[in-house]
């Protein structure tokens, strides 16, 4: 990579730091407290862009591009499911989860599961499983960051990987101020422009989409089919279903996605977020897969399919633009890794350490546990990424399959089904995880032609229903939770419009007031 690229890459980070600094100075303390109080929206578009840009990660740039290069239009099965993931999640779980979590006083998505399905086992299993799988997802970001860094700077992979992991750790341990909304916004804009530029450059290099597809047809017509190279997946509907499900409903198993519902400030935000999510996804989800497909023509000799997008950018974009775009992409990857590590640290300290080992843990001890785990993940992740890096695609699909299978019924039934009880939830989580895991590592995918995600979701959902119904008498859902669910669903002769515009943060007080009135206390 040329010096120009590196110069602009560095320039990007200087600008980001500058914006962060300016934002801090401008506020001179007041803004910091205002920002911390957290009630303030930074505006719907910034919110939306921030929400969406956090979904851009190593998977998008390496995994998606790699799959497109390897299998052609087959990759689009994953894309077309993903496009709807945001709005689906918001419309199904969104507001109700917000209210339910608020009223139960849950701070994390794992605590939320324990409160809804009272049992220490729920918390323990969910916590441990999530930490384990988030670790995999972090590994994917390390690989993406390391490879990207190596490509841009020319530094050998081991050192580049170390630098990438190091920057991620700094971000996580110290970097609060780098996460100011303004810098996220700037980053989103650069990525938006960058990705568009790459797509347009690739298409114009090939004379347009139709010409490109015709050319691909000359290379290998099976790449234009929906069944993959050499029609390898022909008729495998179980695998297709898995591809469709993974990023449409699989997201509902991700704590950092589900947590967003808990933090939602007002219903109107969710509504707008749903709109923006779909609009943004319509372009940005298929884009990396498409670039991967076009790379078949642009970079026919490519040895590592997962480097398709980076290499296309390197080949087609002016050096300066490559520098800025690569920098934005690296920042997105690191920001994703940072979010994941924060989640992991928080679950480890709050949901596992404080809950099970040291209930009177001090702030300092909790921070130590968090940091300790993050460091452990960083070291293990570095070693795995160094010695035998799996493909980003395979890691993310695996982690999402297991998490989605384990948690989808738990989160959906938490708000929608009053009969979903603790035994049902616990067994469904264990079954879903076990089945998805086993499916991945045995030969079942080939023999049954069913994807791990599909097998996992079917087993966990069935288990939830069957076990909950069978154990209704011995383990009914506690009455106070049923009441809270009613409140969250707002059952009763209250006009929808009234409900819809009410302030969700008052739900708990309303319940208490209601109880006081009902008991004739006043």
């Amino acid at each position: 990579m040329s010096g120009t690229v590196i110069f602009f890459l560095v320039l990007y980070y200087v600008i980001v730091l500058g914006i962060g600094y300016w934002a801090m100075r401008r506020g001179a303390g007041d803004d910091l407290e205002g920002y911390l109080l957290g009630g303030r929206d930074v505006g719907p578009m910034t919110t939306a862009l921030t929400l969406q840009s956090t979904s851009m990660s190593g998977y998008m740039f390496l995994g998606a591009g790699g799959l497109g290069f390897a299998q052609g239009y087959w990759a689009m099965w994953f894309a077309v499911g993903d496009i709807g993931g945001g709005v689906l999640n918001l419309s199904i779980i969104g507001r109700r989860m917000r209210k339910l979590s608020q009223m139960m006083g849950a701070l994390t998505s794992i605590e939320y599961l324990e409160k809804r399905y009272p049992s220490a086992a729920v918390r323990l299993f969910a916590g441990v499983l999530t930490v384990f799988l988030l670790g995999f997802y972090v590994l994917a970001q390390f690989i993406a960051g390391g490879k990207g860094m190596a490509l841009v700077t020319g530094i050998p992979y081991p050192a580049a990987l170390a630098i990438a992991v190091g920057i991620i750790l700094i971000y996580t341990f110290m970097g609060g101020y780098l996460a100011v909304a303004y810098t996220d916004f700037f980053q989103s804009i650069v990525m938006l422009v960058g990705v568009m530029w790459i797509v347009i450059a690739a298409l114009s290099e090939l004379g347009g989409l139709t010409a490109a597809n015709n050319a691909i047809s000359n290379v290998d017509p099976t790449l234009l089919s929906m069944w993959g190279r050499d029609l390898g997946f022909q008729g495998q509907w179980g695998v297709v279903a898995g591809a469709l499900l993974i990023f449409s409903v699989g997201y509902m198993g991700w704590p950092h996605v589900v947590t967003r519902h808990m933090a939602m400030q007002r219903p109107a935000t969710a509504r707008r977020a749903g709109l923006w999510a779909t609009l943004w996804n319509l372009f940005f989800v298929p884009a990396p897969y498409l670039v991967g497909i076009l790379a078949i023509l642009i970079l026919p000799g490519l040895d590592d399919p997962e480097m398709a997008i980076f290499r296309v950018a390197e080949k087609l974009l002016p050096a300066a633009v490559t520098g800025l775009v690569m920098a934005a992409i690296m920042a997105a990857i690191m920001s994703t890794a940072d979010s994941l590590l924060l989640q992991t640290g928080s679950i480890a300290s709050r949901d596992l350490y404080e809950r099970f080992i040291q209930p009177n843990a001090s702030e300092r001890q909790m921070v130590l546990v968090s940091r300790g785990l993050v460091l452990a993940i960083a070291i293990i992740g570095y070693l795995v990424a160094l010695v035998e890096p799996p493909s980003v695609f395979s890691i993310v699909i695996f982690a999402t399959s297991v998490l989605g299978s384990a948690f989808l019924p738990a989160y959906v039934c938490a708000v929608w089904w009053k009969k979903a009880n603790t035994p049902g939830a616990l067994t469904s989580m264990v079954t879903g995880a076990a089945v998805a895991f086993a499916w991945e590592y045995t030969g079942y995918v080939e023999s049954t032609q069913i994807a791990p995600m599909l097998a996992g979701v079917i087993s966990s959902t069935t288990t939830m229903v069957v076990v909950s119904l069978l154990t209704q008498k011995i383990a009914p859902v506690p009455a106070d939770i049923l009441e809270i669910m009613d409140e969250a669903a707002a059952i009763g002769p209250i006009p929808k419009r009234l409900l819809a515009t009410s302030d969700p943060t008052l739900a708990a007080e309303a319940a208490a007031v209601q109880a006081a009135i009902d008991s004739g206390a006043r």
Partner: protein
Amino acid sequence: MSEREHVIIARTSFSATDALCFAASLTGDIEAKVESDIIYPYYCFDATCSVPTMVGRKKVSLLCLVDAINGLGATADNFELKSEAVDTKSLLRGDMGDTDAREIAHRTVTHHLGRKLRTITTFDVSLQARGLVHKRFWIVQTSEARVMVDSTTGGFHPLKLRAA
């Protein structure tokens, strides 16, 4: 003669009339009326924390309220407080002790800061208890529903209709 008690209460920005107008416009019910008010208890804490910034650590103060009935904590904007005599019939009491409230406040502030600043670090949160403070909610009866209106923010939430 109703009994009255002195409590610390947040300044009422939305009067009974405001609440009434608002509920009436929301439901289109011109017969709406303010039935009563509820004085809701919270434990109030001033939290001083040290947060990392680009130029070293900075001290910030936040207000944290813990719902004395439900035990839910939340950070809050500063608001004016004053002492006022209120009808004991409107006053709700919680059975939460202030030790528990302090723990909840600590957890709420720490969690909130960690989430907002996206960093794993200690915040050295120290809490100064201000004791119990209260907020007035107006209970407005309309033909469609009963709603409670937050007198400090104007936010509202429906309550179930009175059983016939």
